[in-house]
């Protein structure tokens, strides 16, 4: 009698019984059982599985040879032993061979502390060499404008080659030569120039591929990391910020199945590191007798609470602001009777990742235009025009390109931001705000997904999140409450926008949630 094959199968791995969907590999099944099988060439985000690193070999009861678990389909009743003597010896052997011609230059290699060769060498106990011959030296090469290849460290797992071919959709990285002399290379004269090339450094298990702008900058153990969201465009790729001595030294993608998988674009990677620069506002400044004077927060806010005019005015925010800040600005504008408000948005060329189409470097070069739109701000190409008195509130826009007399004609110019431009110096009050990296908060991406980012850096001076400043100011004027935590500021934003109803800070977590907005800002005409 024919019985349909069941959807799941059961097998045992290292004594742990686990049930998995039919067709699951032994390696993935082991993952389900909480067991990590060491591996190199397999990568969950790269579809091809050559099974060539030979690191994931496991013993399967009844089979004479060790099997590569990354490609072996789990079978009903299989008994897998990942820690048998044979399997352990096979792994030790792989490490021995990998280290044979390896320079073991950990003291000068960026991968130290985050290197799968180091990790497995310790795990397998392969710490001494019995190699008496001269090591083969292949040298170092430039693979791209900003990526270096240290051939001697390369373990030829071909993850980089296959990322470019299978995920980036461009077969521009290849293995040249064969055998012992093989190495990774491009076509001569054609360095890698792809918008997603930086990912090859992330997938490299060792220090063979390194970003040139990260070279020698920081040790893995010296970096403080925080999960965040890339502010480069409206795709909202999940990232990890790596900071050392309070400077961003590296951005890496963070896995999110719904947004960016394991990847991010080079624009996002590089763009932010640039933003470490610039003169920061680190103290509140108020204008006294025509001059800007540094004052304490208390004094600044007291004065503002009294002096802030109502009625007439314009507001300019930035699509780089968090949702909490944008909500707070709207609340403030409401309290002084100002409606509308604008934001400026830069646009650039788009680039989609062929192998994961949800990931696209988007034309909107800012992370929260959707948040701005949600709270009633609209896109503008130009700065607010000449004023005749009234309130000019600028929150976030750096005014880097604004004329030096911008805002001089406002009745009251309040600038809340992180960087001090010439135009901002015309303000009556300048309040130091944090960048997104210096606080917690949320962005809403092009698809209406709301995602949280966490604090990676310590803000300079007494800079504070703009939402904290504004909610305090509002409370002092009898509107709402002051809040000190981002989750509370978020809760207030949820109350103030119908589209955010039902969203909870904890539930958003590190994966994000669907904010069910009508949609992202419309693409610019032409």
């Amino acid at each position, binding site marked *: 009698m024919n019985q349909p094959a069941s959807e799941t199968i059961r097998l045992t791995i290292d004594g742990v019984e686990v049930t998995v969907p039919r067709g699951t590999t032994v390696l993935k099944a082991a993952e389900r059982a909480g067991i990590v099988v060491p591996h190199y060439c397999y990568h969950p985000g790269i579809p091809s599985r050559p099974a060539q690193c030979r690191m994931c070999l496991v013993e399967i009861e009844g089979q004479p040879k060790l099997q590569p678990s990354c490609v072996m389909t789990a079978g009903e009743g299989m008994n897998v032993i990942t820690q048998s003597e044979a399997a352990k010896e096979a792994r030790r052997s792989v490490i021995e061979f990998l280290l044979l011609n390896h320079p073991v230059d950990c003291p000068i290699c960026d991968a130290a502390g985050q290197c799968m060769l180091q990790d497995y060498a310790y795990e397998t106990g392969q710490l001494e060499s019995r190699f008496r011959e001269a090591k083969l030296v292949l040298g170092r090469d430039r693979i791209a404008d900003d990526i270096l290849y240290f051939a001697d460290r390369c373990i030829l797992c071909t993850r980089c080659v296959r990322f470019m071919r299978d995920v980036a959709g461009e*077969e*521009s990285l*290849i293995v040249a030569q064969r055998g012992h002399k093989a190495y990774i290379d491009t*076509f001569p004269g054609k360095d890698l120039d792809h918008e997603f090339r930086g990912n090859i450094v992330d997938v490299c298990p060792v220090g063979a591929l390194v970003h040139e702008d990260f070279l020698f900058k920081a040790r893995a153990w010296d970096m403080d990391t925080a999960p965040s969201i890339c502010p480069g465009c409206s795709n909202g790729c999940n990232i990890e910020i790596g900071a050392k001595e309070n400077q961003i030294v590296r951005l890496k993608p963070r896995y999110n199945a719904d947004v960016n998988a394991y990847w991010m674009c080079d624009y996002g990677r590089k763009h932010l590191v640039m933003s470490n620069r610039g003169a920061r506002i680190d103290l509140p400044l108020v204008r006294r007798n025509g001059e800007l004077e540094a004052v304490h927060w208390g004094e600044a806010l007291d004065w503002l609470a009294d002096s802030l005019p109502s009625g007439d005015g314009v507001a300019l925010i930035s699509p780089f602001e968090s949702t909490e800040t944008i909500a707070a600005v709207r609340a403030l504008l409401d309290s002084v009777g100002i409606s509308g408000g604008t934001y400026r948005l830069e646009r650039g060329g788009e680039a989609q990742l062929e192998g994961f189409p949800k990931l696209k470097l988007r034309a909107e070069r800012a992370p929260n235009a959707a948040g701005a739109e949600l709270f009633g701000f609209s896109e503008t190409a130009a700065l607010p025009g000449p004023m005749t008195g009234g309130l000019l509130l600028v929150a976030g826009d750096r005014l880097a390109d604004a004329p030096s007399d911008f805002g001089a004609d406002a009745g009251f110019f309040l600038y809340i931001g992180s960087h001090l431009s010439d135009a901002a110096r015309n303000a009556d009050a300048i309040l130091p705000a944090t960048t997104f990296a210096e606080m917690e908060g949320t962005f809403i991406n092009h698809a209406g997904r709301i995602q949280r980012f966490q604090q990676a850096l310590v803000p300079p001076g007494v800079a504070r999140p703009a939402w904290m400043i504004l909610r305090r100011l509002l409370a002092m004027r009898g509107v709402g409450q002051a809040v000190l935590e981002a989750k509370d500021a978020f809760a207030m934003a949820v109350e103030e926008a119908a589209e955010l109803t039902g969203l909870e800070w904890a539930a958003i977590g590190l994966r994000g949630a669907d904010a069910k907005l009508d949609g992202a800002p419309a693409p610019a005409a032409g």
Partner: protein
Amino acid sequence: MKKVHPAVVGAQPFQVADLRPVDRLFADAEGRDRLEKALSRYPEKKGALLPMLAYAQERNGWVSPEAMEEIAGALELTPAYVRSVATFYTMYAKRPVGRYWIQVCTCISCHVNRGEEVFEKFLEQTGTRAGEVSEDGRYTVIEAECLGACGFATVVQVNDRYFENVTPESVPEVLAQLEQSDSEE
């Protein structure tokens, strides 16, 4: 133009003494004919890659980066991919070689029949170092792996010819035969 039956278009001798160099492989009728015929023998364009690399070697005596790029374009592959294939194999020269590419087997059966001595003798007689092109451009001498004539050691392949039962003493004779075939043309 050499007429080639499609069934054997990918099996033409590609290490030859008399080159017919071209700047662009597929600019002349012969190149286009070879390409077309090769493409017709495989369900995917990629299948014609080794035949086209062989053709580049046949015409020009080596496979240049320009040739790789041109082949890549014709087969809808990337130049990098073509390079990865070309550099895998030993018989596609990646740099120009001498008119006579002398490949001396020193693998086990020839090794125990003075193969290394034959190799050294060729180097001495041609005045070259392994892999280099002689001053007059006539010779490049390299060691080769098993050439498949083991019973007739030492085996030497020069372009598309086999010389068997070569001894260190008969090396000058082999070179003389090469000269002779030159003057016969």
